């Protein structure tokens, strides 16, 4: 009996039962751009960067179960154009100033922008007012860079069992909150040892006093484009920078 497989940009990709398109592609070493997906967590399909065309329909690769014989379009001008627009939306929605960001070089958003050749933010910047939270002794929260991927929410809830993070607001007003009446991270049970401290794909959750230990230019995505790092565990927050 043949193992089931799908066709990804014309290449046969085998998969096992229950795998998503994203999981099958990752095993096969094929890169599908993504932000909110992380192999260790339940997929949620909100960033939509991994939008592919499966049998002619646009779907999220991270949530769509692979099916035998499915024809999936991934690396095409149409899809990459849509992904670029999504990146531009994320860039103007928050306050992202890569040259002054200590996550530069280890940031998934920045790496994807390079990968997909996003040259400008294109849309008018929203410049939202998002105060930082420096209350915690070990960790700084810079909400300006939040892309609402919910990885910290999922890590704190499902791994740390602490529920330190959650989302509030709606629509363009949606925002990350912490589990304290004061609204301050210092008043939650958060600690640097938490999984949630190390899953932020962008520069929101930052370990203090580590910022530039690893010089810009020598960081993960400075060395090799993200599209060539399929299968390596994703950037792991602040701990990545010291390594």
């Amino acid at each position, binding site marked *: 009996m043949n193992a089931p497989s799908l066709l990804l940009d014309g290449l046969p990709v085998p998969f096992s039962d229950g795998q998503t398109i994203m999981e099958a592609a990752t095993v096969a070493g094929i890169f599908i751009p993504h932000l909110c997906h992380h192999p260790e967590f339940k997929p*949620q399909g*909100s960033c*939509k960067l991994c939008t592919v065309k499966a049998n002619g329909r646009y779907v999220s690769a991270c*949530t769509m179960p692979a099916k035998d014989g499915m024809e999936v379009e991934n690396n095409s001008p149409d899809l990459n154009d*849509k992904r670029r627009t999504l990146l531009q939306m994320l860039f103007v929605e928050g306050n992202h100033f890569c040259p002054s960001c200590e996550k530069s070089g280890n940031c998934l958003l920045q790496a994807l922008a390079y990968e997909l050749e996003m040259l400008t933010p294109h849309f008018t910047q929203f410049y939202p007012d998002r105060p930082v939270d420096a209350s915690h002794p070990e960790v700084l929260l810079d909400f300006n860079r939040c892309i609402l991927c919910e990885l910290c929410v999922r890590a704190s809830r499902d791994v740390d069992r602490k*529920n330190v993070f959650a989302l509030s607001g*709606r629509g*363009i007003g949606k925002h990350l*909150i912490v589990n*304290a009446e004061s609204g301050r991270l210092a008043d939650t049970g958060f600690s640097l040892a938490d999984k949630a401290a190390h899953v932020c794909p962008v520069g929101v959750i930052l370990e203090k006093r580590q910022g530039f230990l690893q010089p810009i230019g020598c960081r993960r995505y400075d060395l090799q484009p993200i599209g060539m790092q399929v299968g390596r565990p994703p950037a792991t927050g602040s701990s990545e920078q010291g390594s």
Partner: protein
Amino acid sequence: MDRDPRWLPEMVVTDECFDATGVAELLQPIVDRHRREPERLLQILLEAQGVLGYLPRTALTAIADAVELPRARVEGVAGFYSFLHLQPVGRYRILFSDNVTDRMLGSVELMDRLCNRLWIERGKVSEDGLVSVDTTSCTGMCDQGPALLVNGQPLTRISAERIDRISELARAQVPMTDWPREWFVVADNVRRRDVLLASGWSAGDAMRAAVARGRERLLDEMKRSNLRGRGGAGFTTHTKWESARRAPCRDPQGSRYVVCNADEGEPGTFKDRVLLASHADLVFDGMSVAAFAIGAEKGLLYLRGEYAWLLPALNGNLMRRRQNGLLGVAVCGQSDWKFDIDIHLGAGAYVCGEETALLESLEGRRGVPRIRPPYPAQQGYRDQPTVVNNVETLCKAALIALRGGAWFAGLGSKQSTGTKLLSIAGDVESPGVYEYPFGVSINQVLNDCGAGNAQAVQVGGPSGNCLATHEFTRRIAFEDVPTAGAFTVFGAHRDMFEVARNFAHFFAHESCGFCTPCRVGTTLVANCMDKIANGNGSQYDISEIFRIHRLLHAASHCGLGQTACNPLFDTLNKFRPAYERRLRSLDFAPAFDLDQALSVARQMTGRDDPAAHFSRAAGFQRADP
């Protein structure tokens, strides 16, 4: 749902007024009545706000403790719904319905008038904490607008005289119970009755008919009827019921569920309001018939927050049904039939009309649509097999139980059987609810409702289709012009650009924010429309709208995002001159206007002399040295 203004002392309320122990004591009866169930969180928050006026920080902590949820999750839910407030609101909270039909009837000018008379700014609370004025999405009174809600109570047919009286009554702190009763009258305005609206069945007739047929034959009749969902998607009801009935219960203790989607949020539609107000027995009969068919023991009716005023009557009806053996144990005298119905209130979130977002809301969470599959028929409420049907669909199901599938299939067209309720409003002589067999032409509807000079009809609300005169020969049917019920008519004198701009802002306001394209895209589109409205638009902005439309259509998580640009797409294709006459140039113009940016500085310094202005020509000279 809201407190009477007399209940609290006259003082400006802030978070500091609510100490933790006092609040916890105040809220204890509420959380206890809801058995401290996390799934009742939204109901608890609504009632807590009813007592406290808004939801101060300490209240969220107390509620989180009581239902044993993380505080951040409670705050996340409270922050999601428009009708829940984390900041103080006025003791009289006045919300103008902001549908385009209200605007056409002068709601914008009326709101300005009220704000001026009360000396307040829109969206802000008066300094004495007495009153706040703002807009809200369509309140379902399009046939008797302009409409507003005062502390959740609907006021219809607002006029300038009424606005003046409202401002006086609010300022004099007259309790709303002493306001003129005729202001609160909500008319049914049924203009054309067909098999549903003309039916005179009594409570329980459909249930007894279903029992007499037996479950198998009932499902056969449903299949024969080819009834399709009236909520807009048009999914075959029988298929939904059959798969929910066959799907295994994941929890062996669990039951199947019937959910009635009464979150009638599509701007321009109000026919479910009429069904709930005047045909509630048919709705509940329909739910019971569905429960009988799939073997559900529990029914839930999700009532949109804007219709909270219907709650007492609906609950009274449920009590009567329990007394008459139509709910509870041994329903209809059948010893093995156990079924009861609960009503959950929404709190101002259009997205909850999407069935999986509705289920999330029913479970006390943020109303974010789920990933599908699995579909509710397999894993719905509490992950159990669940049938989610629209109010009108359930009424039709009751009729099919009574009169059979063949009778129903004989009405309407082959692919669209039966009748459809239309909520007709806008530039017509007789706005109201019209029931037609499917297949009726737009022209005939326009004739019947007295639309003399229509240039366009928005069918199915903002997420539906905008039809121009050359399309008026088309027919209301799933195979031609599908609709959830809204039918909004625009006369020749209306500006279709402003119609589309209203819809663009509606979607930006109602996006749940889960997925990137809808969260950011709906706001980008609304900004684009504002730029054009301000006279700074160009062809470039029109291309941008098309580009975002394509992205939202392809990549959005749910139907809200996928259809959010439809009204713009339609009006751009059919009413292009309405856009183009506003464009500053056909190439590109920046949104930023230097002189306009100085207006705040002018206001602050009290200057308006020529030297305080930055003329356009001068601006370019200075900007490019």
